[in-house]
């Protein structure tokens, strides 16, 4: 009360806000994700590990851990990131950024290779992908850099200045993991877009982005091949997984075959609990279920939008924007890939796809979003 009086003076009463809608939407999505993971993975789990709930248990542990982290983080003020640490005298956000860079370097050298990519760091029985954490670091760090001097972004040189700060981590991620790098690039551009008053240079930057993207796609053989697969999905021998996903989606019809009744998950779609999980959702729950899931995501994004525009300061607003962009772009790309709308790339569906580190860091991110919401003050009507 005293604090508010000291602030603007004119406004009398402010209440602390907490976005319970977002919290429950996220909890619901995590719960739904566990159900779908059990549905999609039980066959393969039984076959490979003799335990139908093998994947469910693992994901469940990470879900609980992630929810704990989310609630814990949401209790702190996100502006803690800006506080300089004792002794080493650098801000927490800078340290976070540096740690992530360290991890990315570490993974490049010592990482565990899974399916041809060096992306994993072993931690006892579990492994985690540091790139998931790097996304969070990028969001927070870029927001921090921008809010130091927001007006500079009005010029292209200002944008480039931010880009120079973000580039090291981006490059470290993009080397082993193109798709995550792409996501981070979009997040970066999204934050800058929101922070900037001028729009013209975004067109220039957009063109540059397209050129860079094209270089990455056509410069590397296997990505060029993906374009061919995308165009000839029904005949290309390597289009098998996506085609099987399409079969699953299409056989769902309007109301689906019913939960647990998918045929395509019985080995036809390899690892259907991972990136392809949305196709099984379509098969089991139909168009109705699929659109409901999309609506749930829209609701989450809507809540993030509300947080972003009501954030007490630009730092919070930009972080919320980054999170919003992150969730949106993953959902959009995942569904677009599964429906063969764009060439395939491995992006998990947030909260639902199997993947421990992805889920934990996503929930960590949502914790930050909730923390921002917790700092929103509003007048009592």
């Amino acid at each position, binding site marked *: 009360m005293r604090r508010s009086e000291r602030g603007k003076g004119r406004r009398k009463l402010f209440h602390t806000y907490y976005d319970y809608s977002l919290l429950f939407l996220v909890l619901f999505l995590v719960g739904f994700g566990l159900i779908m993971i059990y549905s999609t993975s039980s*066959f393969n789990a039984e*076959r490979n590990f003799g335990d139908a709930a093998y994947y469910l248990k693992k994901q469940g542990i990470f879900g609980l851990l992630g929810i704990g982290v989310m609630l814990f983080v949401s209790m702190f003020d996100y*502006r803690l990131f800006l506080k300089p640490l004792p002794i080493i005298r650098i801000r927490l956000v800078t340290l976070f950024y540096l740690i992530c860079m360290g991890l990315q370097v570490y993974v490049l050298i010592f990482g565990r290779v899974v399916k041809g990519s060096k992306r994993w760091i072993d931690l006892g029985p579990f492994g985690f992908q540091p790139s998931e954490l790097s996304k969070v670091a990028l969001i927070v760090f870029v927001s921090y850099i921008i*809010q*130091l001097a*927001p007006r500079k972004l009005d010029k292209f040189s200002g944008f480039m200045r931010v880009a120079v700060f973000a580039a090291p981590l981006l490059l470290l991620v993009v080397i082993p993991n193109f798709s995550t790098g792409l996501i981070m690039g979009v997040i970066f551009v*999204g934050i800058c*877009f*929101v*922070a*900037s*008053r001028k729009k013209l240079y975004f067109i220039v930057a957009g063109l540059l982005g397209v050129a860079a993207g094209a270089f990455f796609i056509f410069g590397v053989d296997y990505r060029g091949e993906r374009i061919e697969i995308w165009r000839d999905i029904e005949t290309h021998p390597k289009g098998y997984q996506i085609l099987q996903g*399409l*079969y*699953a*989606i*299409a*056989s*769902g*019809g*309007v109301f689906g075959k019913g939960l647990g009744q998918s*045929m*395509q998950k*019985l*080995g*036809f779609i390899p690892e259907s609990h991972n990136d392809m999980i949305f196709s099984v959702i*379509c098969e089991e729950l*139909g*168009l109705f279920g*699929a*659109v409901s899931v*999309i609506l749930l*995501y*829209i609701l989450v*994004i*809507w809540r993030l*939008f509300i947080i*972003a*525009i009501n*954030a*007490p*300061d*630009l*730092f*919070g*607003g*930009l972080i*919320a*924007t980054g999170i*919003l*962009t992150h969730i*949106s772009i993953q*959902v*959009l790309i995942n*569904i*677009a890939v599964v*429906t063969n*709308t764009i060439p395939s790339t491995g992006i998990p569906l947030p909260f639902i796809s199997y993947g421990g580190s992805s889920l934990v860091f996503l929930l960590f991110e949502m914790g930050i979003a909730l923390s921002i919401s917790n700092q929103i003050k509003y007048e009592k009507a």
Partner: protein
Amino acid sequence: MARNKTYNKRNVLIVFLCVVIAASLLAGRLTYLMIFRSKDYAARAEDLHERERPIKAARGLIYDRNGQIIATNKPVSTISVIHAQVTEPEKVIEVLSSKLGLSTDYVRKRVEKNSSLERIKSNVEKEIADEIRNMKLDGVMVDEDYKRYYPYGDLASKVIGFTGADNQGIVGLEVEYEKYLKGIDGTILTLTTAYGVEIKNAAEERIEPKPGNNLKISLDVNMQKYAEQAAKKVLEAKEANNVKIILMSPQNGEIFAMVNVPEFDLNEPFNLIESMTRDIETSVLSDKEKQDLLNQMWRNASLSDTYEPGSSFKIVTAAAAIEEGVVDLDDQFFCPGYKIVEDRRIRCHKVGGHGSQTFYDGILNSCNPVFMEVGARLGIDNLYKYFRQLGLFNKTGVDLPGEASSIMHKKENVEAVELATISFGQSFQITPLQLLVAASAVVNGGKIVTPHLGMEVTNSEGNTIKKLEYPEKTNVISKETSETMKMLLEAVVSDGTGKRAYLPGFRVGGKTATSEKLPRSENKYISSFIGFAPADNPQLIGLVLIDEPVGIYYGGTIAAPVIGEVFDNVLPYMGVEASYTEEEKEEYDLGTIVVPNLLNKDKNEVKKLLNDLGYMGEIYYLGEGEIVVEQFPLMGEKIDKTSDLILYLQ
């Protein structure tokens, strides 16, 4: 700290709206896929999920003319393993190898092979399969199947034929009537995972198999057995290569029996019979050699092989000559034992010649010079006209696979010498069945019948689906000629070369033949006899061929009695009643005797033995020496007391 300005908020809104628009587009894409492409993709997905498992259809049965089952099905099982479902591989390997008599290595290889379904053994006996099923081993499948089973074993083996691993006909009637006998396999449509494992409790779609239709054939199991017995007896006695007997109705071409001894076991068609392996080491046979031997064993020589018919062909020449009116029965001929044709001297079988004789006598004596003369009178044009009419240029059209064509001189190449030899049945080749058809036409009033076995097709409920009809051609020779020929051929049996086929009470007609096999220098023969009865209204015609008999090889001596013996059994069986003439009664009231064993006895002993039995016929001794080494008729045969005995001495 920087504030969250209005333009920042507006920008967030733009981002948010972009996301909503993109999400809507994706929802649209989903709608397209899930509603408009649903049918197409779902059908293709279903194709992937559904696995068809065939249910074998039972093959149709084959019945003889009296309804005896000749070919049926025996339930057997196919044992296979599904790799993914096997939980105790060691136990499975041990059980299957011991129960099925397979090596453990063989079974192990299949059990450990990562395939959706691996067949271990098919045609497993039902009892063994049931034992395996009752052990309830995970991943071991026991599927019901059928195996063809022939209750009579080797009866008419070359006629009936057998089936292969997929129950398809391979030789004989089984292949000829495949389209009727073969059923339509049913299917079980099941849902499977990507690894081919059936999903339990998933709705199954089942299409029931449709059993094949049954076939009724004109063969008579008992007549076949009579004929086979007689054939086997003479085969052994004469150490012949093989003996063929065909019994047919001359009126409609129904084949009652078709014997080709040695026969093979239809239930084990891939085992070479003993007579084929006697002189060879089977273990050194290459696959191809073995296959060649098998093909030879399965071959139905009665219609697949040709031979020089020899004297029995004189039936055709005589019928043509009488029909054309170039000869009368009492025309006079002279046989000096040979006839000079152009620069060649063609011998008669009787070295000294038959001397002066009528045409009638010429037929009874089977005199070659008489027929050379008659042939010359006919000329090749006329002769070939009757060949054509009697079906000798065509296949008979019998409903069995593998029928051979005759081998004839080209008409323009036939000079006097060829004409002379053709006239008494040499220098060309026909199948035994062709001769039988031509002879049938001569004695049935001039009707060419299609020899056949198949009579009707019935479905599994026993209703007739199709009566099998066969073409006939009438008036190929006149009735009068036919009557004359019957009279002549009856005389051949009662008074001529064929008298060893004589059956008191039954009017048997026939003609003997002794064909030299090519090359003639090897002195190998086919003795044959074609006979029919009753002579006034033939109901049965039969042909016997004895291939390469050892010792006596005259058709009249060794082949005629075979037909006599068969007819003696078959005619009463067919319901043809014996009617004895007064003459016969008088003659045969004297009774019959059973021929004793005369081998290794000298002339005196033979005489004493036969006297004791009251034998009154004539004994012909052939060869030089004192000891009997061969006798005809054979021991145990019933003969009348006045009939002749032929004994070979050494």
